[in-house]
C-alpha cells in the first residue's frame, strides 16, 4: 500500500469514526422516548380551564376553587387501578371537605359507563365529560388513571401517573403548606 493510499484510508476511517461518534453522542444525550410518561409541562403552570356541567347536573369551574386544593382525576370505568384508587379519592375528598375538592374526568369512556361506575363505587364529587378530549390533551393524559393536584392560586403542583393514595396526595399538600408557613 502506498503512502498516499494509507493517508486516504486514514482520512476515510477518521471521517466515518467521527460520524459514528456524532450519532452516539446525539443518541446518548437526547431525551428518552418513554420519559414523557413521568413528567408534565403543566407543573408550575396555571391549571387549564376545566368547566362544565357534571353528571350530577351541578356546574363546576376550576376557577371557582382557586382558594382550595383541587385533585383532578382522569379515570376509566374499564381501568382496574382506577377502581382500586376510587376509595382513596373518596377518603381524600372526606379529609378535605373544607379546603379541597376532587373532580373526575372520564378518559376513553362513555357517559353511561362513567355513571354506572359512580353508581357502583360511590363518590359525590363532580364528574365532567370531556366530549372533544380537550382537557385530556391539555393535561397531556396518556393512560388512566392520572391525577393532577392544583394548589390554592390555581397552579398545578403535582402529577401522578397510576394509582394514588390519599396519604400520598396529602404528603404533597402538607409539604407545600409547611413551606408556605415557613415563608
Amino acid at each position, binding site marked *: 500500500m502506498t503512502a498516499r493510499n494509507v493517508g486516504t484510508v486514514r482520512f476515510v476511517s477518521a471521517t466515518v469514526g467521527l460520524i459514528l461518534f456524532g450519532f452516539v453522542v446525539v443518541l446518548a444525550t437526547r431525551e428518552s422516548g418513554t420519559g414523557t410518561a413521568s413528567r408534565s409541562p403543566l407543573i408550575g403552570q396555571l391549571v387549564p380551564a376545566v368547566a362544565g356541567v357534571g353528571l350530577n347536573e351541578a356546574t363546576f369551574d376550576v376557577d371557582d376553587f382557586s382558594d382550595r386544593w383541587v385533585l383532578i382525576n382522569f379515570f*376509566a370505568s374499564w381501568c382496574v387501578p382506577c377502581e382500586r384508587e376510587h376509595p382513596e379519592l373518596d377518603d381524600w375528598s372526606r379529609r378535605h371537605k373544607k379546603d379541597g375538592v376532587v373532580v373526575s374526568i372520564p378518559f376513553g369512556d362513555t357517559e353511561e359507563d362513567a355513571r354506572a361506575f359512580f353508581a357502583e363505587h360511590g363518590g359525590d364529587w363532580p364528574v365532567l365529560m370531556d366530549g372533544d378530549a380537550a382537557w385530556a*390533551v391539555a393535561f397531556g393524559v*396518556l393512560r388512566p388513571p392520572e391525577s393532577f393536584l392544583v394548589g390554592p392560586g390555581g397552579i398545578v403542583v403535582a402529577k401522578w401517573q397510576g394509582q394514588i393514595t390519599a396519604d400520598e396526595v396529602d404528603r404533597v399538600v402538607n409539604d407545600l403548606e409547611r413551606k408556605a408557613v415557613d415563608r
Partner: protein
Amino acid sequence: MKQRHWISWFCVALVASLALVAASIADDPPATDGERAYEIKATTLCPVCDGQNVLESNAPVAAAIRAQVDELVSEGRSDEEIRGWMARQYGKDVNANPPRTGIASLVWIAPVFVAVASAAFLVFAFRKWRVGRGAQLSDDDLKIVSSLREPT
C-alpha cells in the same frame, strides 16, 4: 475542454439531486379541512404505542388526539400550531416527521450528503481505473507475464 465537460455533468447531477430533494420535501397542500386533519393524524405518533400513528391506534390517548386535531382544524388553527401543541403536551417524539431545523435536520441532510459523496467517490475511482488501463508495461513486466504463460 475535458474539465468543462465534467463541470456540465456535475451541474446536471446537482440539479437532479436538488430537484429530487425538493420534490420529496414539498407536499401538495391538502384540499379540504378533512384532508388536512387526516394528514396531521397520519404524521402524529400515538405516545403510548410502538410506532403507530394516532390514525391507526385504538388507544384512548390516540382517540383523544384525533378528536382534538379535528376540533383545532375546524377552529382554523394552522398545521404548525396543532403539531406544536401536541408536541408540547406529549413530547416532540409524537411528530412522525423529524423537524427540518436543529440536529434532527441531519436526518434529511445526511442521505443527500452520502449520495453526493458516493457519486463523487465512484467518479474518482472510475477515472483512476481508466488512467491505470493506459499504463505502459516495462520489460520486467513483460518477462513476468511471458514466464507465467509458458506451459509447465
